C-alpha cells in the first residue's frame, strides 16, 4: 500500500477542489437557467471519488448513478465534455442526449450514470461476467447510494456476483439520506457492511470524509477483487452538504446536522493535514481554487460554443442501423 506522500496529497486536493468548484458552478448555472432538468450535486462526498478512482486501472469498468459528476471528472472525462453535456450540446460526453444523470464515456470504460436507483448494479455484474468469460483481468467498480440497498436489484446483484464469484467492487456511498428519507427510516438493519458480509463477500466500512482513509481501503479492496476474482463491498460513510437536488427545501434534516458534517469538510481535513506536515502553506486552497476556476471557465466556454444537435439526427442511434425501424 503506497504511503501517502506530499505528491499524492496534492493530487487528491486538486481532484477534490476540481469537483467541488465544478459542482458549485453547476448550481449557479442551473439558477441562471443554463442547466435544466434534474441536477444532483456531489458537494461533500468528493473524497470518495477522489480516493477510489486512482486505485482503478484504465481497463476497469465504472458504473455510476445520477450523482456521478465527480466520478466522471476523476475518471478522466474532460470537464468541458461534462459541462457541454449539462448544456445538452453535441460535444457533451453523451452527445448532449443524456444530460447530468447519464454521462457516458466508453473509451474510459465509464458506463454511465443511471437515473433508476439500483438500475446500474445488474449492469456491473454483467460487465464483470463478460470480463470473466473473456479472461480479462479487469474489475468493475459500481457506485450507488444507500437508498439502493432497499431495491430488489441490490440483493439480486450482490447474490449473483457472490454466487458466480465475479470481480465486482460494490461501492456504497452512504450519505444517510435517500432523497428525503433517512436510512434509519427505511432499513431495519442500517449496518450495511454487516448486510453485505452476509452474501459471503468481504465488506469494509470507511470514513468517507477522509480521502486518505478512502484511498487506502480502496486500494486494498481493488487488490482483493483483482486477485480473488470475486466481489467485495465498501461502505463509504459520507454526507452531502447540499440538497438532494436543486428543488429540495431540505425539511428532512436540521441545520445543526449539516453544520456538524460541514465541520468535517474533506477538503479542509486534507489541507490541515498538509499544512501540519509542512507540505503546503495555509492559503493553498485559494491557489488551487484559482487554477481550477480557470479550467472550469474554459469548460463553460467550451460548452457554450458547442452547437445543439440537429433535430434531423433525432432518430439516429435508436438502432445501430437508422432505417431498422422503418423510420416510423
Amino acid at each position: 500500500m503506497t504511503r501517502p506522500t506530499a505528491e499524492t496529497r496534492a493530487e487528491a486536493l486538486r481532484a477534490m477542489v476540481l469537483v467541488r468548484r465544478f459542482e458549485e458552478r453547476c448550481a449557479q448555472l442551473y439558477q441562471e437557467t443554463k442547466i435544466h432538468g434534474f441536477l444532483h450535486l456531489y458537494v461533500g462526498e468528493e473524497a470518495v471519488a477522489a480516493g477510489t478512482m486512482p486505485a482503478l486501472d484504465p481497463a476497469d469498468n465504472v458504473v455510476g448513478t445520477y450523482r456521478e459528476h465527480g466520478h466522471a471528472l476523476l475518471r478522466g472525462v474532460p470537464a468541458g465534455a461534462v459541462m457541454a453535456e449539462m448544456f445538452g450540446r453535441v460535444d457533451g460526453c453523451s452527445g448532449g442526449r443524456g444530460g447530468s444523470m447519464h454521462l457516458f464515456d466508453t473509451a474510459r470504460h465509464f458506463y454511465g450514470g443511471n437515473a433508476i436507483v439500483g438500475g446500474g448494479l445488474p449492469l456491473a455484474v454483467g460487465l464483470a461476467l463478460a470480463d470473466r468469460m473473456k479472461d480479462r483481468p479487469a474489475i468493475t467498480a459500481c457506485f450507488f447510494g444507500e437508498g439502493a440497498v432497499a431495491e430488489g436489484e441490490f440483493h439480486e446483484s450482490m447474490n449473483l456476483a457472490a454466487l458466480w464469484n465475479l470481480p465486482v467492487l460494490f461501492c456504497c456511498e452512504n450519505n444517510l439520506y435517500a432523497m428525503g428519507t433517512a436510512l434509519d427510516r427505511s432499513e431495519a438493519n442500517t449496518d450495511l457492511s454487516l448486510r453485505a458480509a452476509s452474501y459471503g463477500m468481504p465488506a469494509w466500512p470507511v470514513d468517507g470524509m477522509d480521502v486518505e482513509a478512502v484511498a487506502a481501503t480502496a486500494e486494498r479492496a481493488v487488490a482483493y477483487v483483482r486477485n480473488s476474482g470475486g466481489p467485495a463491498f465498501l461502505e463509504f460513510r459520507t454526507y452531502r452538504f447540499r440538497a438532494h437536488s436543486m428543488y429540495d427545501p431540505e425539511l428532512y434534516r436540521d441545520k445543526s446536522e449539516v453544520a456538524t458534517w460541514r465541520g468535517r469538510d474533506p477538503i479542509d481535513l486534507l489541507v490541515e493535514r498538509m499544512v501540519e506536515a509542512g507540505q503546503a502553506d495555509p492559503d493553498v486552497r485559494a491557489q488551487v481554487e484559482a487554477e481550477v476556476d480557470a479550467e472550469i471557465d474554459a469548460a463553460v466556454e467550451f460548452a457554450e460554443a458547442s452547437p445543439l444537435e440537429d433535430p434531423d439526427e433525432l432518430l439516429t442511434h435508436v438502432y445501430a442501423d437508422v432505417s431498422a425501424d422503418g423510420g416510423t
Partner: protein
Amino acid sequence: MTDTAASTVELRMPALGADMTEGRIVEWLVEPGDHVDRGEIVAVVETDKADIEIEVFRAATIGRFLVEPGEVVPVGTPIAELEATARGAAPDEAPEAEEAPSATEVEPEDAAEAPAGRETPTPHATHVTSPLVRHLAEQHRVDIAHVHGTGPGGRVTRSDVEHAASTIPAPSPAPSREPSREPSREPAQAPGGRPRVTPRARRLAEEAGIPGERLGDLATNGRPVTGADVLDAGREARGPQVPDVDPMRRRIAELMARSWREIPHYHLERRLDVGDLLDRLRSLNEQRSVADRILPAAVLLAGVAAAAQGVAECNGWWRDDRFHAADHVDIGVVLSLRSGGVIVPTIANADELDVDAMMGRLREIVERARRGRLRGSDLAEASITVTNLGDQGADAVFGVIHPPQVALVGLGAVRDDVWADGDSVRVARTVRASLSGDHRATDGLTGSVFLAEMNRALDRLLREETP
C-alpha cells in the same frame, strides 16, 4: 450573476427547480451594506412547492434591493445589486463579456427551452446530409443532389426532402395503388341521412365521374356501397364488355386541349389519285383468300411510314423547347370505338413493314381494340399519328396533333372526283390527304415535302407489289 459595471453585480431570481417559472421574496436575511461570503444565504424565496433559501456565489457587499418582499417576479429578474469584493489573487470569476444579455431579456419559457447567454452556436461543419435525411430521401424516391438545402451552410434538411417529395408530378391518372395526394372532396349529403359508402367506392366513383349524391342508390339490400358496386354501375352504364374508355376518354380530352393551347398548328392538304392503286389491289386480292386480302388503309399507312422515314423532321417530339427526332417510325393509328371515344394504338417500326405485314398489324390492333384487350406494346409512344375517318365518309379531316408529337396525317374517304390532266379532264378516284404540322418544329415547306414524299411512296408501292 452577471456584471453590468466592472464591480456592480446583479443578483437575479434563481431557477430552483425543473418547472419553476417565477418566485416571491419572502424575506431578505441581509441589509444593504452587509458584507457576505461565497455561499452565504441572503434571502428566502417562496416557490409553489416550498420556501427555499438562496445563496450568493461570490463574496460581495449588499447594494440596493430591486424587489420588495411579497412581490412575485419571473425567474431571472434582477432582485438586488451587489458590489463584488476583490478576492485574493484571482477574481472569483473572470468578468463576463460586457454584452452579456441579462436573464430578464430572455423569457423564462425561452430560458427553459434554449439555453440563454451570449453564445451563438458556431456554424457546425457537419457532413452535408444526415443518414436520416438520406434514408428519408430514398423512401420518397427524391434525388438529394437536386434538392436545394435551406439548412445552415446549405445543408439539406428533412423538410427540404419532404417538400421535394411533394412536388414530384402526381402519378399518371390511371388508377394506381398509390392513393392520390389531393384530398378527396366530401360527397354531398344524401337526402335522408348519409349512405354508407366505403372509401374505395368513394374514390372509384370520383374517378368515374359518378356524382356523390347518386352513390346512395347503388347500395344493395342495405349493405354499404363497395368499390365493386361502383365498378359494376360504371360497366352497366357503358354496356357490356366495352373496354372501360372513360379514363382514356379523359386523358385524350386533356391531350387535345393541351395540344390546341400549346401547339401552333398549320394545315396542308394534297389530293392523291389512288385509282391505279385500287385497281392494283383488286387484282391482287382476287387471287387471295379473304383472310389475306389487303385493305387500302394498309397501303396508305405504308405510304405515311415511308414519308415519315424520309422526312425525319416530322417524325419525333417537341420537348424542353426543342425538337427530338425519333429513331424509328412508330405510327399511332386513331381508331374510333362504337361505344364512343377513340383509342390510339401504335404500330411500331412501321417503316420496316411491307404492305402485308402492315395489314396484319392493322387487323391485330383493331381486333384487340374492339375487345378492349390492348397490350402494353400497343400503347407504346408513337412518333407520328394517322387519323383515318374515311370509312365514315368524311371527305377530308384536319386533325389535332397529339403532343408531344409534331405532325398528324389525316386521310379522307375515297371519292370520285374531277381530275384535270393537262387540258383534258377525267373522273378519278381520289383520297384527300392532310398534314397538321407544329410550326415550332417545321414549317409549310417541310409539310408539303412530306405529302409529296407520301405520294411518291404510294407509286413505288404500286410498282413493287408482285402478284
